């Protein structure tokens, strides 16, 4: 069974139809790279997956669980949307770290807030001492996990630094650790290296590559074609709201079938 199943996703902003029926499925542990010119709808697709935009039509399922299906007329509640979001993580082009928190607090904030509501539920069901024990245990785990993630992205020595004290590449690595802390099924990247100085791109791509090797399921929107060729299990080309090419990196880069894909690849190589 695929980990991600997207069917006929459509999204318009006013009269502008950005996504014109996207079908996509992804196997667990695979890295999918989405390429295409700007304005083709790549970012909107990622935002739909993360429920920052609600699609006008279509369905999204993760691990066989339907998160949204517009044929089913009921609208999603805020609570459902929040729950759906936890299946996905998103790393932004502009990092969007929380400036007032240290690197480590950036990573632990969301898990700790989630723990608060979990503990409240346990308190209701099993009493306050059970909730206290659970909280203490989880807090320790969250802390340990944050240390591991920092090590994974190579920033153990920056745990107590503030985002403003870090380079762009370091900030983006913290953002990746922050997204991983919520243990999403699928981690999405929206042009994670586009806001970086050229000499800082490598350190971020290295982290992405190690994540791919560790078997993380990822969807990456990027213009780094060399990275796509090396790391992607699958590359799709998007043009004007539809997927026009879908295959292994070799197929897409060396033997593109679609005219638009050929033009695009010619213009960048």
């Amino acid at each position, binding site marked *: 069974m695929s980990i991600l199943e997207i069917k006929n996703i459509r999204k318009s902003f006013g009269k502008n139809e950005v996504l014109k029926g996207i079908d996509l499925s992804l196997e667990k542990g695979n890295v999918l790279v989405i390429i295409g010119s700007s304005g083709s709808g790549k970012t909107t697709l990622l935002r739909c997956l993360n429920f920052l935009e609600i699609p006008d039509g279509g369905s999204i399922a993760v691990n066989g669980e339907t998160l949204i299906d517009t044929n089913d007329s009921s609208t999603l509640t805020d609570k459902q949307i929040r729950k759906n*979001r936890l299946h996905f993580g998103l790393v932004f082009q502009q990092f969007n770290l929380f400036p*007032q928190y240290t690197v480590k607090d950036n990573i632990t904030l969301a898990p700790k807030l989630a723990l608060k509501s979990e503990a409240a539920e346990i308190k209701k069901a099993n009493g306050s001492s059970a909730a206290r024990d659970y909280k203490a245990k989880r807090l320790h785990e969250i802390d340990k996990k944050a240390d591991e993630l920092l090590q994974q992205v190579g920033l153990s020595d920056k745990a107590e630094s503030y985002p403003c004290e870090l380079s762009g590449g370091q900030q983006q690595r913290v953002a990746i650790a922050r997204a991983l802390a919520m243990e999403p099924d699928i981690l999405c990247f929206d042009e994670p290296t586009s806001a970086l100085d050229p000499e800082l791109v490598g350190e971020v791509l290295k982290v992405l590559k190690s994540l791919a090797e560790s078997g993380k399921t990822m969807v990456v929107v990027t213009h780094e074609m060399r990275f796509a060729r090396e790391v992607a299990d699958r590359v799709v080309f998007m043009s004007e709201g539809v997927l026009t090419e879908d295959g292994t990196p070799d197929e897409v880069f060396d033997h593109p079938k679609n005219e638009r894909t050929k033009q695009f690849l010619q213009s960048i190589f």
Partner: protein
Amino acid sequence: MSQFVEQLPVVLSALNEGFVQTLKLFIVTLLGALPLGLIISFGSMSKFKPLSSFVKTFVWIVRGSPLMIQLLIIFYMPGIVFHNPVFGGGEEGRFAAACVAFVINYSCYFSEIFRGGIKSIPYGQQEAGEVLGLTKSQIFFRIKLLQVIKHVVPPMSNEIITLVKDTSLARIIAMQEIIWAGEAFLKGSHGIAGQVWPLFFTAVYYLAFNGILTIAFGKLEKKLNYYRG
């Protein structure tokens, strides 16, 4: 000179008494107008058009008309128009009326400062919180609020210093604040009459108090400078 030395303790104790009223009005206004201003700013940013239009009109009226007129209306209108003088004629009633007028007036000014502060937070902060599964209130209180506070401290300190001096407007409904206390020595009070220097002397109180506030806000600004962004 000997007369001045004789009068000084009398005048100072009267001015101190007036300044306590000034200070009380200042503190009540801050405690009321800061949270109310935040709520009004939410109202003016609401996506529900009727609410935001209503709030914006209200803010326009309050900011667009003199605080002195508002004081007079709030204090006198219940008695004169509705024959129900809720505030009564004593000092307590006058103080209460002044508090109501100041809280309303200043919460409207503060709301605009808060609105600017909230709008200045990049939308990416909201979205970063959303994709991590945070609730709307968690995003506001745990992510945005401190950033908003950092952004609003400079304009807020400006407004609060203005508030210190604006409390003197309560004189118009004969609340016994420090200007009232100083002015009393012109007409005659505590056996002293025809003296103008006590009135001038009140300015020293304002100056000293605003000096303390300026230093305090400077420290707060410095403290919030532990991060950039």
